[in-house]
């Protein structure tokens, strides 16, 4: 009678535990070293000549006060009124220069919020100058 030999149970050459250790360490490394911040950018006009010649009209000066007030060419306005006026001016001349003049203590976040509004109403030629004290 033929004797069938049972196949030997397959033996793993390497244990899986060290592999898991290494993979865990790699995972930890990548979790700590990677960031998921998506950067966005706002282009700032730093050209020397303030007017780039696209528009002959006097620039619209938007003042931002330390206390959060907004001014357009010196007259205090709310954000809604400012947007309305700018929209009207920019409808006539889309390349009209806008100058943002924040006072010394205005935080950057406030300036960025105002810049967002200016971009939203269609301002494209925006520059930054120190405000009157």
């Amino acid at each position, binding site marked *: 009678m033929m004797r069938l030999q049972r196949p030997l149970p397959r033996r793993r050459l390497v244990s899986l535990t060290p*592999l898991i250790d290494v*993979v865990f360490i790699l995972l930890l490394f990548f979790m700590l070293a990677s960031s998921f911040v998506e950067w966005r*950018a706002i282009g700032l006009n730093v050209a020397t000549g303030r007017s780039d010649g696209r528009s002959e009209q006097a620039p619209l000066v938007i003042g931002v006060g330390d206390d959060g007030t907004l001014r357009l060419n010196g007259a205090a306005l709310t954000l809604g009124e400012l947007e309305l006026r700018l929209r009207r001016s920019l409808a006539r001349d889309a390349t009209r220069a806008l100058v943002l003049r924040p006072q010394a*203590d205005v935080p950057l976040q406030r300036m*960025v919020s105002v810049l967002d509004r200016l971009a939203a109403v269609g301002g494209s030629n925006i520059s930054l100058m120190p405000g009157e004290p």
Partner: protein
Amino acid sequence: MKLKLAPPRRHDDENLIPLINIVFLLLVFFMLAGTFVQAGRFEVIAPRSLSTAAVEERQLRVLLAADGRLAVGEREMSAPQLRHLISTRLSEQPDLQVQLQADRQLRAARLIEILQIFRAAGVAKLMLLTEPDDA
């Protein structure tokens, strides 16, 4: 008396395979989806904005802390040093884009001072880095 034999011990490793699968998937996810954090001299919390313009690949990133300190990477520097560094980099690479990572609490007066340094150094393209506003 008949002693009951303990059932043969199963290979423990068999149970670990699903775990390893998950860990591998997480590993691949973090490797592909994340970008490496760039070490900076100090922490800077960028302002939030509605801007949707994505940044170009990293060129020269200048850190500007809320108290007005300047750094490039790990190196803290004074304004004249920064100006010198930018001038040198611009002479090597004229289309260099400078990315300014400024803190959201930074005072406007200091920002404008720094912008004047960039202007004096001859920077043509300056991007202010912001975070997307999720709200």
